[in-house]
């Protein structure tokens, strides 16, 4: 049965919720009474008092209206001072609006309400991004409030083609989302596909980012991130201009980007803030770091356990000597230290900052020095694992960094079982997996695997901006021209 808007019913519904306010207000001599319906703490009460209620009570003209309908019309046409005002006759929509922080005046006789958007709740101010900070570049970042985030995007793209579609997900949480794209650039088929996926989500609550991500990615079992996120409005707006689609989720302080490819995850906003040669050099270092973090522990195991000819003579001799009094095999040493490294990282994240620092020092001394002195591990293993660990943190994307950490373990295990053959098998499997993946119709390794040479100007090397003339064809089939020569 369809429910109608009624103050008594709403009062009974929220009878046990002390923060929900349903209060009658009589506004004139004609005994017209409506009910204020709002959630305490989510509205700006000063604005309600000063701009709406005070002016309404003192308004001489409202006295002349003798029916609820005429009062409603008067209020909707400027009787109350607020720009975001609308009439609502759907019960569910009214509930959602009020629980999202709006104020409603319920007119029982008309079975309708007037909704004022006067949300005001505790929120962070727009501050510097914590994860993607740059020296040269914008210092604003997204916060947990959807509308602030869409405003940050809109501020950078003042195009009439920027579309910000509203969607709601979560049967209980009713989380607001906005799908953002530039309608004359983005591939609308991809937009539709993403919209359909979001609408198909049938979960009760969107409590963590992973709840959204897992529904949007196409290869759930892959360790490689298939959805990119950023805290930076400038980065999101740049990708929107490239034809990608952004998803802003209320309560999540970053914005998702789709389709996502591996090279995107290796790029940092800093690359574009610097001279193109410096930017390219930074990227090359990042790729080298990826190779180091993935292969160095496995290489060490393979070289010290199977094919020692891969080491130069002096290094082989010093490795041999360093290992002589260590009771464990190279693979045990490396895998053990990798696990210890992960434990230190996890413990450091969970502990309060001050304790975390102390623990890091303690962990560093115990693992790094005492373990070597006690001949539990060889010094070279400490160097290898530390270098691999630090290199892993060079990845600009945390999800990629985490995925690589897991793959690093697999490679180390394969090297322990089969030396360089095992490592080669692992590498072939990873490359095959990467080549087989696509993301909303775009190859995951694009533009590395693209034939179109114009796509290769922003991969490992960043060309000068004047060479970025076309948008990637796989992402934007039409309207590809970014700039004319």
């Amino acid at each position, binding site marked *: 049965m369809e429910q109608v808007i009624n103050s008594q019913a709403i009062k009974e519904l929220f009878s046990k919720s002390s923060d929900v306010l349903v209060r009658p207000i009589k506004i004139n001599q004609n005994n017209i009474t409506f009910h204020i319906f709002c959630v305490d703490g989510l509205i700006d009460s000063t604005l309600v008092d000063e701009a709406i209620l005070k002016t309404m009570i003192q308004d001489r003209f409202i006295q002349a209206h003798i029916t609820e309908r005429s009062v409603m019309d008067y209020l909707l046409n400027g009787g109350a001072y607020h720009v975001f005002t609308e009439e609502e006759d759907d019960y569910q929509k009214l509930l959602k609006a009020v629980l999202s922080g709006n104020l409603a005046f319920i007119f029982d006789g008309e079975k309708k309400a007037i909704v004022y958007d006067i949300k005001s709740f505790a929120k962070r101010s727009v501050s510097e991004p914590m994860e993607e900070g740059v020296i040269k570049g914008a210092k604003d970042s997204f916060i947990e409030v959807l509308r602030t985030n869409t405003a940050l995007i809109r501020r950078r793209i003042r195009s009439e083609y920027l579309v910000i579609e509203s969607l709601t997900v979560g049967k209980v949480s009713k989380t607001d989302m906005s799908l953002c794209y530039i309608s004359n650039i983005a591939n609308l088929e991809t937009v539709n596909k993403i919209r359909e996926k979001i609408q198909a989500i049938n979960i009760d609550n969107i409590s963590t980012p992973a709840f959204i991500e897992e529904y949007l990615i196409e290869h759930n079992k892959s360790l490689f991130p298939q959805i990119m996120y950023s805290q930076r409005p400038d980065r999101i707006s740049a990708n929107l201009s490239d034809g990608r689609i952004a998803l802003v989720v209320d309560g999540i302080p970053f914005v998702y980007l789709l389709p996502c490819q591996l090279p995107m995850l290796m790029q940092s906003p800093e690359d574009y803030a610097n001279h193109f040669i410096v930017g390219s050099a930074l990227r090359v270092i990042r790729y080298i770091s990826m190779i180091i973090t993935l292969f160095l522990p496995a290489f060490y195991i393979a*070289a010290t*356990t*199977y094919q020692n000819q891969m080491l130069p003579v002096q290094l082989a001799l010093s490795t*041999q000597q360093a*290992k*002589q009094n*260590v009771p464990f095999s190279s693979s045990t040493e490396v895998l053990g230290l990798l696990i210890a490294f992960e434990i230190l990282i996890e413990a450091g994240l969970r502990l309060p900052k001050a304790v975390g620092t102390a623990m890091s020092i303690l962990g560093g001394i115990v693992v790094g020095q005492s373990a070597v002195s006690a001949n539990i591990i060889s010094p070279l293993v400490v160097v290898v694992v530390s270098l691999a660990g630090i290199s892993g943190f060079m990845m600009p994307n945390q999800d990629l960094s985490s995925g690589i950490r897991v793959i690093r373990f697999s490679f180390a295990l394969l090297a322990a079982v089969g030396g360089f*053959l095992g490592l080669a098998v692992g590498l072939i499997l990873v490359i095959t997996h990467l080549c087989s993946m696509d993301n909303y119709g775009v190859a995951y390794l694009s533009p590395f695997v693209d034939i179109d040479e114009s796509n290769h100007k922003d991969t490992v090397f960043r060309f000068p901006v004047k060479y970025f003339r076309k948008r990637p064809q796989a992402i934007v089939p039409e309207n590809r021209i970014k700039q004319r020569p």
Partner: protein
Amino acid sequence: MKMNRIFFMPCLALLIFLGGCTHDMSRREIDEIDLVLVLAIDYDNGEYTVSGLYSTGGGADPEKGTGTGEEEVAKGTGRSAYEALEDLKLKNKKSISLAQAGSFLIGEAAAKQGLNRSLDFLSRDETIKMEALIYITKGKKAADFIQEGIENKQTIHEDLEAIEQKQQEILTRNDNTMVNILNDMKQTDSCVMVPYLIADESGYLIDGYAVFDQLVLRDYLDHETSDGVNFIRNIMRSYPVYLDNGVGLYISYTNTKLKTRLENQQVTVKITVSFESMLKEVLTQTNVFTAKEMERLTQEQNNYIRSIIEKPVKYSVENGLDILNLARQVENQNFVQWQGIKDTWADEISDIKYQYKVQSRISKSFILGED
């Protein structure tokens, strides 16, 4: 998809286990093996001896640093070099790995038995470094050579590395790598040239080339003749020139071209050497920087280098040995005619006619303190 996985996983496991069956896949921790750095091969009384020099670690004490430790020698004997190596593996306390061996020393007696008999087993070992260097120990057993070095408190493998580096300063490439020697051994028309080592108080020195005819040690070339070989092979990087009138020069660039002609069964080889030198020492009162004097010096250094080049040519003609690797040149440049003389090439070597063209330039020099 599910079926793919069912087939894929056993295939992967099989691949790994099959890999484990190969020789190089045997799992051995690096500290549980003796890394042979230098391998010496000798022959005496019908028996081969293989001596492996390896470094004994001194532990990983960070305060003491990680030096390379003491060097020790392990020996094995057998009817062939391979049998001797297996004997060495059997006798040694730890497993032996030849993967880090950077130098192979072949004793004079073993060299006289044939280069192939000493190197065949090494050429079939997939762990051997192809850039490992091969030397002949002149007049001695290779094992004695190592033993004397140990007694003189030398670090043998480091001394041999130092020789290699010194060679790289003088030559553009080392032709005595395992891969080059194995390649040269296939060319039976020419001699295989392997550098020979001599020991003096300060360590080891390369004095020249040992000449192998049909893979058997035939002779040793003296220092200057060997230099001439290097010039003709176009591998000379730098070379000092000492002229009689107290002028010393240093050749910093050389280029040698060999042009062969085969007409009426007569082989003619034209050797063109171009080089650049700079003045390094002037002890004469004469102003050597005048055009006339420079021209005279240029002519003198040309004559000097020509005399160096003529030495290996003379040796080749007198002994009928193709130490300049001319067979390959003649074959490449006169392929059709070569078919007519290839069977009698050994007889042709002494009849080859040589033409020389030496041209050079002395580059500018300066004197500190003068304008």
